């Protein structure tokens, strides 16, 4: 960890998690607190600007980006339960010249939750019991953007920071998927502009889990989960979807 013996963490809760999935945000906060962290949620925070940028309006998201930097620059670390939003802040948010130093600080100290626990807190795994058959959904931005796990395209040693944290959970079985890291088809505005393919991709992804008897699809990005949950509910698929923070926070002693 940094020089500060008990660094101060700014909790970044993506806007749709704040509005739709407060339980995931609560689990993230409580988990970090249980792991001994000092965590503050800056109340003024709104959104990282990703929806605008991915739709091709990066230049219009400068105000949102400046706001984000001002909200978070004074923390030692910034942690969020979303690989996608973290990737956006780190790599894609527009450069704000007048906040250059603060932006650099934010970009080099922002972490997705599982990588923060493994890489910064240096915790190998969480102990507890979770007797369920799970399938892991590797969200693309966390996987290929933040490299939270090895992907099926590269010839590289296998690793998975999120599953590493869950590997010692008693009774939990992780199912091997046929297409281990294919995209679920959410893709932000893609979900609406390319509706037909988006839904088909989601159906295919869910079927890969359901065919193998998965009880719970576990992921690290609520955007992918929201999309797949929406399809699973509509199609009455017999499967649950959960963010890993909820599981870890529930089992940790």
């Amino acid at each position, binding site marked *: 960890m940094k020089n500060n013996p008990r660094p101060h963490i700014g909790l970044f809760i993506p*806007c749709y998690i*704040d*509005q739709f*999935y*407060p339980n995931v*945000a609560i689990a993230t*906060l409580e988990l970090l607190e249980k792991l001994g962290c000092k965590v503050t*949620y800056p*109340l*003024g925070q*709104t*959104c990282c600007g990703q*929806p*605008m*940028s*991915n*739709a*091709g*309006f*990066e*230049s*219009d*998201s*400068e*105000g*949102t980006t400046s*706001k984000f930097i001002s909200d978070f620059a004074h923390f030692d670390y910034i942690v969020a339960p979303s690989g996608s939003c973290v990737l956006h802040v780190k790599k894609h948010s527009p450069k704000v010249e007048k906040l250059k130093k603060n932006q650099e600080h934010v970009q080099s100290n922002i972490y997705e939750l599982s990588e923060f626990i493994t890489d910064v807190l240096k915790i190998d795994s969480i102990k507890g019991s979770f007797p369920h058959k799970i399938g892991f959904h590797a969200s*693309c*931005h966390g*996987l*290929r*953007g933040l490299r939270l796990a090895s*992907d099926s*395209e*590269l*010839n590289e040693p296998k690793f998975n920071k999120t599953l590493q944290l869950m590997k010692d959970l008693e009774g939990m079985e992780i199912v091997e998927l046929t*297409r281990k890291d*294919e995209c679920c*088809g959410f*893709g932000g505005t*893609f*979900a*609406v*502009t*390319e*509706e*037909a*393919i*988006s*839904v*088909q*991709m*989601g159906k*295919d992804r869910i079927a890969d889990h359901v065919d193998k008897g998965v009880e719970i699809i576990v992921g690290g990005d609520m955007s992918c989960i929201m*999309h797949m*949950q*929406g*399809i699973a*509910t*509509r199609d009455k698929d017999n499967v649950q979807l959960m963010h890993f923070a909820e599981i870890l926070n529930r089992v940790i002693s």
Partner: protein
Amino acid sequence: MSHPQNATVFLKDKARAKWHDDTLWIVREKRDATIHLIPEWEQLRELASQIKDHTLSKLDYYLEELEKNATANGIKVHWAENAEEHNQIIGKILEEKKCKAIVKSKSILTEECHLNPFLEERGIEVVDTDLGERIIQFLKQPPSHIVMPAIHLKKSDISDIFHEKLHTEKGNVDPVYLTHAARQHLREKFLQAKVAITGVNFAIAETGEFVVCTNEGNADMGVHLADTHIACMGIEKLIPRRKDLGVFLRLLARSATGQSITNYNSHFRSPSPGKELHLILVNNGRTKQLAREKFRNSLKCIRCGACMNTCPIYRRSGGFSYGSTVPGPIGSILSPGIDLKKYSTLPFASTLCGSCTDVCPVKINIHEQLYEWRQEITKAQGSSLKGLSMKLANGIFTSPLAYKISGKMMRASLKTLPNSVIYNPLNAWGKGRNLPELPTESFKDWYKKNRNEQ
């Protein structure tokens, strides 16, 4: 039609769409299996990427070196600024030779230049000799994939086409039988053609030679039987030294089909005695792309098609849905450079999942360039409706109060609106998906109540 419209049509035939997805996924799996047999795979990719970066940074120098050395080898080198010039050069050679029928092995460049219709208008019979190309030529279709041009067709489709064109037995779908029929048919064409046209996979500046990779040997067959060989290449198909070739040959077939190497890697250096060898170097917008810093490295592409096989969108929408010569992810970053307006939906036909970038054997950052093209396209389009809503969104997200009010309103209105409004057919989200169940309070509200530190 735009990509989303084409994709919607493609997905209507569910069984066929699934077959297409599965078929290409098998190719992706073959690729995965073979690359894991090469421990130095990632270093090979890095090396190939660096060689191509270097070549592009000195493209003028290496092109002139190629011209000099090829000319010394007895090759007639031509320069074509655009598709029209490329076609004219070929037209002129054929006129001189009084040639009325040619054979052609697979060349995406000649597709890009629309050579076939150009020649056919002049009364010249063009026969594509690659099996897949011949099949789609019978249907008057363009290729739907750059390596497997007829991948959108099933065995039964091909059986029907051959029954009509080659009089094979109706309903016989045996691939050996059908291939044999094609072989007989093509053999006649090979024997008649005085001029053979091929593409180029790699041209080597140092030696003035070039290499054509095929699985069927059709390029060799055509070239050796003809008196004149015309090879057409985009100016980016260049590598500096012969020793660089091994890097690319190891990457190409493995990435394309999962084979360790293409069956025929034919090196052409000089014309045989009494014959002619022409090499046409085509620009057709490539130097423009070279001048676009963010998109320059799309010119590293060696046309393996791996990005198509891995793309979840390509697999579920088919090559024709892109409406461009080169479909799929690489096509979606090349095509907007040719016609921004016509291809404006292509960079959005992606979830930016990044799989294309990680399979690319020359490490083109395809998904990042898709993102960059989106920025260019919205700038060019000015303030469209989507632009206005995004500006509004930026306004909401800049102010915590506006965000809070709009979030509350959204949650409240979603709760009170009847399902018939939320799941209106015009609402693209609700067509195939439910909305999340709505919590009574946001995290922010919970935090204020449960944590007192602020």
